[in-house]
C-alpha cells in the first residue's frame, strides 16, 4: 500500500518533490504504520484518503506557477500529450459522465466487483496456503521416502520399516539426515486439566532434519530416552499462558510422566497444525524387527542431488538390509522386489489441496474474463450511443488518442470503484468460504485478506480496466465523420464483430466452467450412492480414555468396564443400541497383518494380508453391517469363551478361496503360532478409508484375547444409534463424570459428519466451481441478451420495412434468434475444444466419471445452447412486435 502511495509522489512537480519529497515520504510511512496498527480498515481508509489528498494536492501544485515556471517537462511529455493534469481532467470528466448514467455504472461496477472480489478471496487462500513456504529451512531439499514392491500383494505404496531408517541414516551419502514420525491422539494431563490431544512421536532427528529450532529450551536427544517433550506454540499459549517456567516440568503425557524441554515457534507445524507436542523417540538398532512396515519417513537431501541417483542409492542400501538385520525368506523376497518412492515433502503436505486451489483460481479468473467481456460490451453499446458526440469532438479537432483516453478513463474509474467494492466483498465472503474448506489444510486458519491480496486486487482492477476499456475505446475512436452529415440516429447495419466476438468468447469460457462443475456434480452423486456397508444416519460415535482407574489392568477388566458403560448408555432415553469397535470407519485406519489358516500355516511365507480390528457383537447391528452367515459376537465371547472371531466376506474368500464354508474353520496371525481363532460369523464388507476405496478385507477379534494379557481395549470407539445425535453427547459426558471422573471424552462425531468430511475436498471444489460456473452462465446469458436487445433496438427501422414488405412475425423472430444462436454455437464449439484439455485438471477429484465424459459434455453444451436460445428469444419476440408504421414514422 505504501509503495503505491509513494509512487503517487511522482505526480508532484519536480521542484516540489526536490524540496519536500523526503519529508512527505517519512510522513506517509509513519502515518501508514500508525493507521495499520489500529486495524485493517484504518489502514485502508488511510491509504484511500492519502491517495486522494496526494492526487488533489499534486494537481493544484501543477497549476501553481511557482513550480510550472521552473518545471520544464510538464507541458510536453510528447506522445499522446498525457500530462498529469490532463489525466486528472479526463478522470473528472469520466466521474461526471458516469454519474449521469447510474444504471450503466451500477451494472458495470457490480459485475466487476463480484468477479474481482472472488479473485481477491481465492488469491488470499492461494497466497497463504500455496505460496507461503513451508516453515522449515531449505524446504525444497526435504523429501518423503516410502516403499513399494511391484509384483507383491502389498499396496502400491506403503511406509518403510525401522531398519530402513537406520540403514538410510547411517549409510546414505546423498541424505544429510533422516527422520521418522507418527501421529496419534493420547492423554495430556496438566494439573486438573485432562484432554486427548494430537501428538507425534518422531525420531529425535526430526528437528535437525527439518532445520527447526525451539524458541525456548532445547530439543530432545537420545539421552532423554523418550521422556523429553517439545510442545507447540499453540499448546504453550492455551495451556501454559506462555509461561517460560514450563521448561523442566513433568506432566502425564501419552501414558507416562514426561518432561517438557522446549517450545517451538508460532510458525512451526509438522506434519499438520493439529499436533500439540512431539515426544522425542530414540530409535535404537538393538530392538529392530525387520519387515514391520508402515513407518513414515522424511529426509533432507544433500544440495544438487537428482532424484534418479537418490533412488539408485536407496535401492542399493535397501538390498543389503536382510544381510544386516536378518528376517524371514519372505522378507528377503520382498526386499528384492522393493523400490523406494521419493516425493518432495511440499507436494506431499499440500499437493492434494493445491490442485483444487489452482483449479478454483483458474475458475474465478475465467469469471473475471467473462465479467470484463460484459463490461466491455456495455462500453461498446455506450460508445455507440455517443457516436454523434464523439464525431462532434473529432470534428472539433480532438485527436484519436484523446478519445481513447476519455474511454479508458471511464473504464479506469469503473474498475477502481469495483476494486474497492471487491475488497469489501472479499472481506465479508472469505470467512463463509473458509467454513466450507477441507480440514487439515496447513495454514487455513491463518488465511485473511493479506496486503498482497489487496495489491493483487488493485492489479486485477487495472487489468480489468485495460481489458474493458481498450477494445471499445479503439472501436469507438474509429468514428466516421459521415455520420454527422447524414443526420440519422445511428446505424442500421446489424453486424458488430467486436461484440459477437465478446459474446462467443464468454460462451466458450462459461461452457468450460459448466462442464467442469458438471463432472464434479456427477462424481459427487456417484460417491453419495456408494454403499459403504454401514449406515450413516442416526449414528453418534465417541471415545473415552478411562486411565487412572486402578482396576483397569488387563483385557477382561477393560472389557467389563466397557460392557458396563455400554449398558449405562443403552439405558439413556432414545438410544436404540450401542456398539464397541476399535477403529471407526472413515476416521481411523486399521492395522494390516498376515493371517494363515490350518491349510496355509505350513507355508512359512504364505497367508493373506488382512485388516484387523476389535469389536463387540452389538457393533454390527448398531452400524447396520449385515451378518451374512453365522452370528455376531455374544457376551460370552468376551469373557468365558475366548478364541471366536468374525470375518468380513472378502476376508473369508481370501482365507478360504473356492467358496468353502468359513463357519467353524480356524485361522491365526502368522507370527502368533499358539493363538487360533474360530470363525463364528461372516459379515458384509465395509469401506474403512473412504467412499473411493475398495472394501477392506477385515477380521474382527473379540475384546478379550485367549489370555488376559494378550490385548486390552483401553480406549475403543463407541457407536450409539439414536435419533438424538445432537444432545446425546452431554448425557454421555455426565455418565463418564460419574464412572471415570476426569477421563477425557474425544473424537466425537456423527457418521454423517465423518462422511461429509471424507468428501469435503470434492464438495468444496464442487461448491465453489458450481458458484463460479453459475455466475459465468448468468453473466454470459446477460451479455448475449444485452447485445441482441441492442441490435433489435437499432434495427427497428429495418425490421419495420421488412414487415411492411410482407415479412411474417415468425420470420423476423427466426432472423434474430438465428443471429444469437450462430454466435453461441461458435462459442460452444470453442468451449468444447478448451474443455477437452482443461477438464484433465480435475481428474484427481473425479469418481465414477471420466474427465472426457460424453454425457456431461453434450448435456452442458445443450444447456448452454438452450440458455442462448432463451436469451435470444426475448429480444426476438420484441422485434416481431414492431409496428411497421410506428417504426418508419419516427
Amino acid at each position, binding site marked *: 500500500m505504501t509503495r503505491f502511495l509513494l509512487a503517487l509522489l511522482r505526480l508532484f512537480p519536480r521542484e516540489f518533490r526536490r524540496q519536500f519529497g*523526503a519529508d512527505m515520504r517519512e510522513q506517509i510511512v509513519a502515518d501508514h504504520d500508525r493507521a495499520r496498527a489500529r486495524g485493517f480498515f484504518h489502514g485502508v481508509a488511510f491509504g484511500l484518503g492519502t491517495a486522494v489528498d496526494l492526487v488533489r494536492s499534486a494537481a493544484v*501544485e501543477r497549476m501553481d506557477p511557482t513550480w510550472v515556471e521552473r518545471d520544464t517537462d510538464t507541458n510536453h511529455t510528447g506522445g499522446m500529450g498525457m500530462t498529469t493534469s490532463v489525466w486528472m481532467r479526463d478522470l473528472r470528466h469520466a466521474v461526471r459522465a458516469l454519474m449521469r448514467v447510474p444504471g450503466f455504472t451500477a451494472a458495470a461496477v457490480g459485475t466487476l466487483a463480484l468477479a474481482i472480489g472472488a479473485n481477491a478471496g481465492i488469491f488470499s487462500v492461494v497466497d497463504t496456503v500455496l505460496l507461503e513456504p513451508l516453515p522449515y529451512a531449505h524446504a525444497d531439499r526435504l523429501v518423503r521416502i516410502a516403499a513399494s514392491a511391484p509384483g507383491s500383494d502389498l499396496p502400491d505404496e506403503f511406509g518403510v520399516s525401522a531398519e530402513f531408517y537406520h540403514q538410510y541414516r547411517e549409510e546414505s551419502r546423498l541424505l544429510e539426515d533422516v527422520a521418522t514420525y507418527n501421529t496419534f491422539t493420547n492423554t495430556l494431563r496438566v494439573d486438573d486439566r485432562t484432554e486427548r490431544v494430537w501428538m507425534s512421536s518422531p525420531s529425535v532427528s526430526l528437528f535437525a532434519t527439518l532445520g527447526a529450532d525451539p524458541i525456548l529450551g532445547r530439543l530432545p536427544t537420545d539421552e532423554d530416552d523418550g521422556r523429553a517433550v517439545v510442545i507447540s506454540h499453540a499448546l504453550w499459549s492455551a495451556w501454559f499462558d506462555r509461561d517460560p517456567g514450563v521448561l523442566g516440568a513433568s506432566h502425564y503425557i501419552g501414558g507416562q510422566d514426561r518432561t517438557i524441554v522446549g517450545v517451538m515457534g508460532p510458525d512451526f507445524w509438522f506434519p499438520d497444525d493439529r499436533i500439540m507436542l512431539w515426544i522425542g523417540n530414540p530409535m535404537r538398532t538393538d530392538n529392530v524387527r525387520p519387515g514391520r512396515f508402515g513407518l513414515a519417513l522424511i529426509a533432507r537431501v544433500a544440495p544438487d542431488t537428482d532424484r534418479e541417483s537418490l533412488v539408485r542409492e536407496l535401492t542399493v542400501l535397501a538390498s543389503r538390509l536382510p544381510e544386516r538385520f536378518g528376517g524371514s525368506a519372505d522378507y528377503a523376497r520382498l526386499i528384492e522386489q522393493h523400490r523406494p518412492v521419493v516425493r518432495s515433502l511440499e507436494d506431499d503436505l499440500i499437493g492434494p489441496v493445491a490442485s483444487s486451489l489452482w483449479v478454483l483460481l483458474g475458475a474465478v479468473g475465467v469469471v473475471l474474463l467473462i465479467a470484463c467481456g460484459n463490461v466491455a460490451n456495455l462500453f461498446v453499446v455506450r460508445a455507440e450511443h455517443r457516436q454523434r458526440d464523439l464525431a462532434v469532438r473529432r470534428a472539433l479537432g480532438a485527436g484519436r488518442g484523446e478519445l481513447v483516453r476519455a474511454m479508458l478513463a471511464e473504464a479506469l474509474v469503473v474498475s477502481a470503484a469495483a476494486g474497492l467494492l471487491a475488497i469489501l466483498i472479499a472481506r465479508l465472503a472469505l470467512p463463509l468460504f473458509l467454513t466450507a474448506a477441507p480440514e487439515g489444510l496447513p495454514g487455513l486458519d491463518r488465511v485473511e485478506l493479506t496486503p498482497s491480496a489487496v495489491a493483487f486486487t488493485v492489479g486485477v482492477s487495472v487489468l480489468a480496466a485495460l481489458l474493458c476499456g481498450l477494445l471499445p475505446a479503439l472501436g469507438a475512436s474509429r468514428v466516421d465523420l459521415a455520420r454527422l452529415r447524414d443526420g440519422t440516429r445511428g446505424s442500421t447495419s446489424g453486424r458488430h464483430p467486436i461484440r459477437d466476438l465478446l459474446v462467443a468468447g464468454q460462451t466458450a469460457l462459461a461452457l468450460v466452467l459448466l462442464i467442469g462443475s458438471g463432472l464434479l456434480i456427477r462424481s459427487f452423486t456417484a460417491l453419495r450412492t456408494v454403499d459403504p456397508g454401514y449406515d450413516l444416519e442416526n449414528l453418534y460415535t465417541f471415545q473415552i480414555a478411562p486411565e487412572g482407574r486402578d482396576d483397569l489392568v488387563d483385557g477382561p477388566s477393560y472389557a467389563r468396564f466397557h460392557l458396563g458403560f455400554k449398558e449405562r448408555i443403552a439405558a439413556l432415553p432414545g438410544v436404540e443400541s450401542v456398539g464397541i469397535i476399535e477403529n471407526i470407519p472413515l476416521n481411523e485406519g486399521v492395522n494390516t497383518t498376515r493371517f494363515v489358516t490350518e491349510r496355509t500355516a505350513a507355508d512359512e511365507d504364505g497367508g493373506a494380508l488382512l485388516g484387523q480390528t476389535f469389536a463387540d457383537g452389538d457393533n454390527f447391528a448398531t452400524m447396520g453391517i449385515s451378518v451374512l452367515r453365522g452370528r455376531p459376537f455374544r457376551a460370552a465371547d468376551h469373557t468365558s469363551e475366548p478364541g471366536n472371531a468374525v470375518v468380513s466376506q472378502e476376508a473369508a474368500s481370501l482365507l478360504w478361496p473356492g467358496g468353502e464354508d468359513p463357519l467353524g474353520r480356524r485361522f491365526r496371525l502368522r507370527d502368533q503360532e499358539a493363538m487360533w481363532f474360530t470363525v463364528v460369523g461372516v459379515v458384509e464388507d465395509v469401506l474403512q478409508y473412504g467412499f473411493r476405496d475398495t472394501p477392506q478385507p477385515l477380521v474382527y477379534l473379540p475384546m478379550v484375547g485367549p489370555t488376559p494379557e494378550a490385548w486390552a481395549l483401553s480406549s475403543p470407539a463407541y457407536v450409539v444409534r439414536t435419533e438424538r445425535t445432537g444432545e446425546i453427547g452431554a448425557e454421555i459426558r455426565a455418565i463418564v463424570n460419574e464412572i471415570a471422573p476426569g477421563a477425557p471424552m474425544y473424537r466425537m462425531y456423527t457418521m454423517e459428519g465423518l462422511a461429509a468430511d471424507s468428501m469435503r475436498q470434492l464438495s468444496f471444489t464442487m461448491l465453489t466451481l458450481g458458484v463460479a460456473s453459475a455466475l459465468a452462465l448468468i453473466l454470459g446469458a446477460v451479455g448475449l441478451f444485452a447485445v441482441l436487445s441492442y441490435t433489435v433496438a437499432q434495427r427497428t427501422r429495418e425490421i419495420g420495412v421488412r414487415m411492411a414488405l410482407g415479412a411474417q412475425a415468425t420470420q423476423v423472430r427466426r432472423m434474430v434468434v438465428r443471429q444469437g444462436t450462430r454466435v453461441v454455437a461458435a462459442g460452444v464449439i470453442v468451449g468444447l475444444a478448451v474443455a477437452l484439455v482443461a477438464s484433465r485438471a480435475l481428474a484427481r477429484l473425479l469418481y465414477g466419471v471420466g474427465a472426457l465424459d460424453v454425457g456431461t459434455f453434450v448435456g452442458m453444451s445443450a444447456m448452454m445452447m438452450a440458455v442462448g436460445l432463451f436469451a435470444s428469444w426475448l429480444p426476438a419476440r420484441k422485434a416481431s412486435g414492431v409496428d411497421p408504421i410506428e417504426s418508419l414514422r419516427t
Partner: protein
Amino acid sequence: MGDTREDGLSRLEYHVLLAMADGPRYGYGVKTAVEEESEGVLTPRAGTLYRVIARLMTRALVEEVAAPPDTPPHPGRERKYYGLTAQGRHALADEARRLRGAAALADERLGAVQGRP
C-alpha cells in the same frame, strides 16, 4: 483546509506557524505538533501539509533553516528544518491578536462569565 485569504491565515496555516514559534521543526515534527496543538482537530495529510508549507515559504513567512545544534543525527538522511522568518513571526502575532479580538467579541455577545480564563 487550504483556503488562504489574501491577508490573513487559514486555520492550518496558523497552526503550522504556531508549531514553529518556539523554534525550528522538521516536517513530521510540524505535523505532530499541529495535531496535538489543535487537539486532534487538524490532522493534515502529507499532500496538504507540504502544500501549505510551500505556500508559506513563497509568502516568505517560513524558511528552511539549519538544524538546531542539539539535534541528534537522524539515521538515513538529514532532515530539513523549517523556521519562522521575522515576517512570519509578525503574521502569527497579528493573527493571534485578531483571534483574541474575535474571541473577546464573542465572549461579550454571549455574556460570558467574567473572571474566567
